[in-house]
């Protein structure tokens, strides 16, 4: 397929959800009714639009020139606001393509899932509109090539996610939502200052030009300031320890689809920004900060795992959703560690771990949401009682899937979770030439210890939730096992986890050349 057609496909991917969001707020035309009641029609609209976007994403991935993943494809470049030198510059390369597809997939699955199990809240109209607006923002983040547009897209997701948490969430939702938005906005305005500094000093906001320059137009002190400001904003989103404290509350309070998108897509925006903006545009600044970033990353790994271990222990009243949220802090620590190595291996690992975490944690949040629906609580002690919840016995398929998700998350070889973390640690074992090798060896050792802790808490969860004695297994009323729509929403995630685990070259082949280009060809 030629580039012009792909260009329209990419633009359509961004415009379609936006139109859908506007359409969802309008009164429904009778001709377009996709269900018997207006509520069903509205949810049908959500599935239809996100489905179309997913089809477009697949078309984009199929039409993408896989022989040249390092070059920007499907590019559009229009002068939007000449006064601020802002261009509508869109495009995809091997780094953004997997994330675009992941976003389209997860949003579609969320729309599908909520079609059958809408969380309690003000009704489907606003829900669908917000979901579609969120999709526009996340897709745009991965598709734009202008620093100011990146900021715009970065901010676009805030309002929809705020309302998804504050209106459809669980206990303490208003507080958590406000905390989420205040933290992220504080981060992103600081990021804006850094972006403006880069733009003002280099004379352009164009990410391709800036990446090609490799920071040659920026003095070292400018790079240091800009990298710090931008890095802080992205680190809040990623989240990097100790800036993660908004995350557990937001994930716990959010409805299932909110948690899925928050963990599966929104966190990736932070790490994607680091790879896309910081690595190529302020290489000098990144070089100075890399050891600190790596140190924070491994602290995050250990901290997240220890928090999860504490939550998983009997008698601590740990919430299962909160546990998965903390596990995200640990997993994103591996992504950050990979980026901080400044090597092609490490960054590839980070990008792989990004996608893998999106698939696996997305699946886990779906599963935990389903468990919560069935038990009415996600409190681990309440679920498990003294002997375990015996999910294998009461709902064998659900239990099996949960065990599968947990095992994938702990990085079992052959599943998606393995490669990213392995490559990140491998990169850290041999970091970029002028970084301190002994320090990074220490980080590698700590990270490796972190994988052990991860295995420990996830297996504890499996033992306490999936296993149990026969009495619990035979308890009445019987639990519903995986329903049809749940099966439809979860299968793609599980299947892709296996595919990415067995055939990592699909992803690595895309990211590898693009990463080498971004790192300046070394």
């Amino acid at each position, binding site marked *: 397929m030629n580039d012009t057609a792909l260009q329209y496909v990419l633009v359509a991917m961004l415009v379609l959800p936006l139109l859908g969001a506007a359409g969802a707020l309008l*009164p429904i035309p009778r001709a377009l009714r996709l269900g018997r009641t207006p509520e069903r029609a509205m949810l049908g609209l959500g599935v239809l639009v996100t489905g179309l976007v997913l089809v477009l994403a697949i078309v984009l991935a199929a039409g993408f020139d896989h022989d040249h993943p390092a070059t920007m494809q499907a590019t559009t470049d229009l002068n*939007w606001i*000449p006064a601020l030198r802002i261009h509508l510059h869109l495009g995809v390369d091997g780094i953004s393509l997997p994330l675009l597809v992941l976003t389209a997939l997860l949003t579609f699955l969320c729309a599908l899932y909520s079609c059958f199990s809408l969380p309690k809240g003000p009704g489907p109209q606003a829900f669908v509109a917000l979901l579609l607006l969120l999709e526009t*923002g996340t897709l745009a983040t991965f598709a734009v090539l202008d620093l*100011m547009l990146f900021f715009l897209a970065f901010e*676009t997701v805030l309002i929809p996610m705020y309302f998804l948490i504050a209106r459809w969430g669980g206990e303490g939702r*208003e507080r958590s939502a406000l905390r989420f938005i205040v933290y992220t906005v504080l981060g992103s305005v600081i990021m804006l200052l850094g972006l403006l500094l880069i733009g003002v000093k280099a004379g352009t906001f164009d990410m391709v030009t800036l990446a090609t320059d490799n920071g040659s137009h920026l003095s070292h002190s400018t790079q240091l300031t800009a990298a710090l400001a931008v890095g802080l904003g992205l680190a809040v989103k990623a989240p990097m320890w100790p800036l993660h404290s908004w995350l557990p509350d937001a994930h716990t309070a959010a409805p299932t689809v909110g948690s899925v998108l928050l963990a599966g897509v929104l966190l990736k925006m932070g790490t994607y920004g680091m790879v896309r903006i910081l690595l190529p545009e302020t290489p000098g600044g990144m070089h100075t900060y890399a050891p600190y970033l790596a140190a924070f990353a491994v602290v995050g790994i250990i901290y997240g795992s220890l928090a999860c271990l504490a939550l998983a222990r009997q008698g601590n009243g740990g919430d299962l959703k909160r546990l998965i949220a903390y596990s995200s802090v640990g997993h994103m620590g591996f992504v950050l560690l990979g980026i901080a190595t400044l090597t092609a291996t490490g960054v590839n690992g980070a990008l792989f771990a990004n996608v893998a975490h999106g698939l696996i944690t997305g699946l886990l949040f779906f599963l935990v949401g389903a468990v919560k629906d069935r038990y009415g609580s996600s409190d681990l002690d309440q679920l498990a009682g003294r002997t375990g919840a015996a999910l294998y016995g009461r709902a064998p398929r659900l239990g099996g899937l949960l065990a599968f998700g947990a095992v994938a998350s702990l990085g079992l070889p052959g599943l998606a979770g393995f490669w990213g973390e392995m490559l990140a640690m491998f990169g850290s074992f041999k970091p970029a030439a002028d970084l301190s090798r002994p320090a990074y060896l220490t980080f590698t050792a700590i990270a490796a210890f972190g994988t052990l802790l991860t295995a420990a808490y996830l297996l504890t969860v499996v033992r306490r939730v999936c296993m149990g004695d026969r009495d619990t297994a035979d308890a009445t009323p019987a639990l519903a096992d995986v329903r049809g729509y749940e099966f439809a929403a979860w299968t793609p995630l599980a299947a892709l986890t296996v595919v990415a685990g067995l055939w990592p070259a699909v992803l690595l082949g895309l990211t590898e050349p693009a990463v080498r280009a971004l790192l300046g060809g070394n």
Partner: protein
Amino acid sequence: MPSLVQSVDWVALTPVVIPAALALAVLVADLFLPPARKALLGWLTAAGLLAAGLTLIPLRDGHRSTFCQTPGASCSYAADHFALVIQALVLGGALLTALLSLATGTTDATDELPGGEYWFLLLSSAAGGALLPASRDLITLVVALEVTTLPAFALVALRRGDRLASEAALKFFLSSVVATAVSLLGISFVYAATGTVNLAGVAHGLTTAPGQLEHLAKAGVALTLVGFAFKLAAAPFHFWVPDTYAGAPLPVAAYLSVVGKSAGFSGLILLTVIAFRPYDDVWGPALGVLAALTMTVGNVGALRQRPGADRSAVRLLAWSSIGQAGYLLVPMAAAASAADPAHEIGTTVAYALMYGVVNLGAFAVAALVTRGAPRGRLTDYRGLYARRPAAALALAFFLLCLAGLPPGVIGLFAKVAVFSSAVGAQHGWLAVIMAVNVVIALVYYVRWTALLFTRTEADAAPAGLAPAAEGPSATGPAAVQGPAAAAGTPVALAVAIALTAVAGIALSGAPQLVLRYAQGTLL
């Protein structure tokens, strides 16, 4: 031998002359109109303001000037691009105020608001506001400033028998008069030091002033600026704002928040960028500190509003307008160290245009809500979406524009432009303070926005009443385009909300429409 009689370019003056002439016409017409038809005056006022706004179109090349000492130079009135843009803002603001007043005035104006005088005062003040950005000497500037504010005192106090309004007007009057006196003293000092009142002449005079007059000149500059900072309600001259806005009739508060502010900042721009240019090392840092102080005081004040208190909605808008005034000052502070100050102040103008549109929109929705809930509490906005979906969506959009978050794209980019001018001028500290302020402001704007979509207990409990209220607004497709379909919305108010909402959405799609002023040179 030049003629002693100046030739006056009346075409250039039309944006000022039309409101002024109409003000007198309305005052006279009021005497002859029967009470039942007083509403005509309001529509006449709105039409006149619209006509005055339209006369800006033929002037748009921005070369005209009049009242010149020598032909083409040292003019007292210049219809350049800066003047035209601010005039458009002032006249547009006055037009929307007139529409708001029509809606609140027509129902029970007979007792509360005396019709004729009200329109007369509004038009006089608008004429002053339109004159101010075009004036190019200190005397005209002060006269214009007073013509803008003197009728405003009366407007605030106009509601008969309202003690709160009288108190508000008195506070406004006393502090304003003091500021004017200080300003006049400063101007006399400047005149003494430079021997001219022409702005460009003052700039020249300040550089060539003899050494012993330097302190006098500096004192004069400082005192003059204080007077204008007061009109802009910059901290620490802001204390009158919350009480005055809360006490004034709602349209008047809207008027003050936009036109009053634009008078203040356009005066400040003219003074700093043209007249006091040689002293930019003095006023630059001073404006920077003023900006930081103003935005912090305003936003913290807004954050501390209790939602249950009477008139808390207008109070919050008042405090937030102080915060917004702080953002307006940032590019002016940056202008001091820029090579081309006239370039930087374009960002202030662009920001003011954005602010004018969305703030008037927010006031328009507030006027609509206040009709049903006269106490004007923030809690009255709870569940507005269920009652009036279009108005709630519009208000949410305006608030998000003010906060600078998508979908309020124009608000976001206007803030980006301000940030960019601060970063470009090496005012990193100011940019960081502003960043913190944006976050503080976000909290109260988002809280208010969230309140609009919160379900009330009343909506849930009496199921019989809710459909009756929702019926007309939920059925027609017009419900989304404008609030006209909502039950009991006066036409003028619906037009005002629709105008501002359409303008805000159009600007969000094409921010270049206002941001181009941040690019070119206006003065």
